[in-house]
């Protein structure tokens, strides 16, 4: 085995041996102390300036600035952002991830996933539900009021409930979700239910107010995508230990900010390889069309990076129809094609309808470039204007240029370019 294959094998083993556990919900400034200083706004995707941000991302920035008390109103926030008053950084630079716009600021509650094999932690905000939400650029009073409720009520309650036990082990939960039709990106129905089932007793014990408890249970139980953010923190906790392995060309992160798509590769450290993000192809909710769509966005591609989402489409035939990717019977083809660009399979995350094939795991940039098969990503589609929300769901390809640029940089490091 050559040094690159050995390093990639090591990366795969690190991923497979990960033991991610949801252990807490804490304020972002507690999870990420760097957020206490300055007016830092963490966002999805690779680094980006205010000027280059898409509409929903700017809308979310404006909203979160008002939420944090850093602006009097949305217009004031936009002016201050343009004047350079806020610092923008990717979530990925602070052990965090966020869906769609991915706003993370100091007072938001973050779910904490600990990878007990490696001792590292990863963070993600609580999913806000569907409709008008900040992750799709929503920023009106209803959006900010929900964020305040998450900060003041649900976050502390979930944290108290989680701290009262040993956390929720996610590896087995995801494995069960795969057998129940989830792929953990556009379908989280089963895992959201399983998580709620696991947490309900401790939520009930932690609560001193039945009305609050009822609200919390109704919110979690009424959101089919509640688990998405947990899966994302799970993915981040699994991939971070794979970073910076010499000779390794496994992808450690894929992410989009609505303008650029970026990837990071283990052997090239924390360098981003970026290219213009592509438009998803998919289905639109009634009254909307491709003309309304914003280009692809969010850190949620961390779930594809660990072999879920588009890579696990075979487990979720219903998703193939939902995202306009073809007939249910074609779902397995997505998973099979992704196996052509990965180092291996995950024997613990299997797909019953594919004879218990493990999900394709560990994206090797060499295989992506060689085959010309970019990673397939299942994604939600945001309206291009801030404040409107989700308008559809679809499939998008990672831009090949990210991988060819990464390959050239990796080849230079290996001394063969």
């Amino acid at each position, binding site marked *: 085995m050559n040094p*690159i294959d050995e390093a990639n094998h090591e990366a795969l083993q690190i991923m497979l041996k990960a033991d991610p556990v949801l252990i807490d919900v804490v304020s972002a400034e507690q999870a990420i102390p760097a957020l206490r200083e300055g007016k830092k706004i963490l966002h999805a995707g690779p680094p980006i300036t205010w000027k280059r941000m898409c509409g929903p991302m700017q809308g979310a920035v404006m909203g979160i600035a008002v939420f944090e008390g850093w602006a009097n109103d949305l217009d004031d926030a936009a002016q201050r952002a343009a004047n350079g008053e806020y610092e923008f950084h990717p979530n990925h630079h602070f052990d965090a991830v966020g869906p769609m716009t991915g706003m993370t600021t100091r007072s938001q509650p973050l779910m904490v996933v600990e990878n007990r094999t490696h001792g590292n932690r990863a963070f993600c905000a609580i999913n806000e539900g569907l409709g008008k939400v900040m992750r799709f650029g929503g920023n009106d009073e209803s959006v900010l009021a929900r964020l305040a409720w998450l900060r003041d009520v649900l976050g502390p309650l979930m944290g108290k409930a989680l701290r009262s036990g040993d956390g929720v082990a996610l590896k087995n939960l995801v494995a069960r979700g795969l057998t129940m039709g989830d792929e953990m990106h556009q379908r989280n129905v089963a895992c959201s239910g399983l998580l709620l089932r696991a947490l309900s007793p401790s939520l009930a014990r932690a609560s001193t107010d039945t009305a609050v408890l009822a609200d919390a249970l109704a919110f979690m139980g009424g959101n089919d995508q509640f688990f998405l953010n947990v899966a994302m923190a799970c993915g981040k906790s699994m991939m971070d230990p794979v970073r910076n392995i010499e000779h390794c060309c496994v992808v450690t992160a894929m992410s989009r900010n609505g303008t650029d798509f970026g990837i990071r590769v283990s052997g090239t450290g924390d360098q981003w390889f970026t290219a213009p993000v592509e438009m998803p192809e998919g289905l639109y909710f009634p009254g909307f069309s491709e003309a309304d769509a914003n280009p692809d966005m969010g850190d949620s591609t961390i779930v594809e990076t660990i072999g879920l989402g588009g890579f696990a489409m075979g487990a979720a035939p219903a998703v193939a129809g939902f995202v306009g990717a073809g007939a249910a019977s074609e779902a397995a083809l997505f998973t099979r094609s992704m196996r052509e660009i990965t180092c291996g399979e995950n024997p613990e995350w299997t797909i019953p309808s594919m004879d218990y094939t493990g999900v394709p795991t560990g994206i090797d940039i060499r295989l992506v470039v060689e085959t010309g098969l970019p990673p397939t990503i299942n994604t939600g589609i945001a309206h291009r204007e801030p404040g409107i929300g989700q308008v559809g769901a679809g499939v998008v390809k990672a831009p090949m240029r990210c991988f060819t640029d990464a390959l050239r940089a990796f080849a230079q490091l290996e001394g*063969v370019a």
Partner: protein
Amino acid sequence: MQLLEHKPVVINVGLEGFADELDSQDVTVVHLDWRPPAGGDAELADLLSRLGS
């Protein structure tokens, strides 16, 4: 000579259109979905080779 006396059995490599054409003429054909490494980009193919791919 056999080719002229018997119906051919074809393995088609690469362009699927050739296989479709033969199939429409009732010729037994197996299509192999193949494309040159890196889409035929010589520079990238050379790098891939050096990287053990």
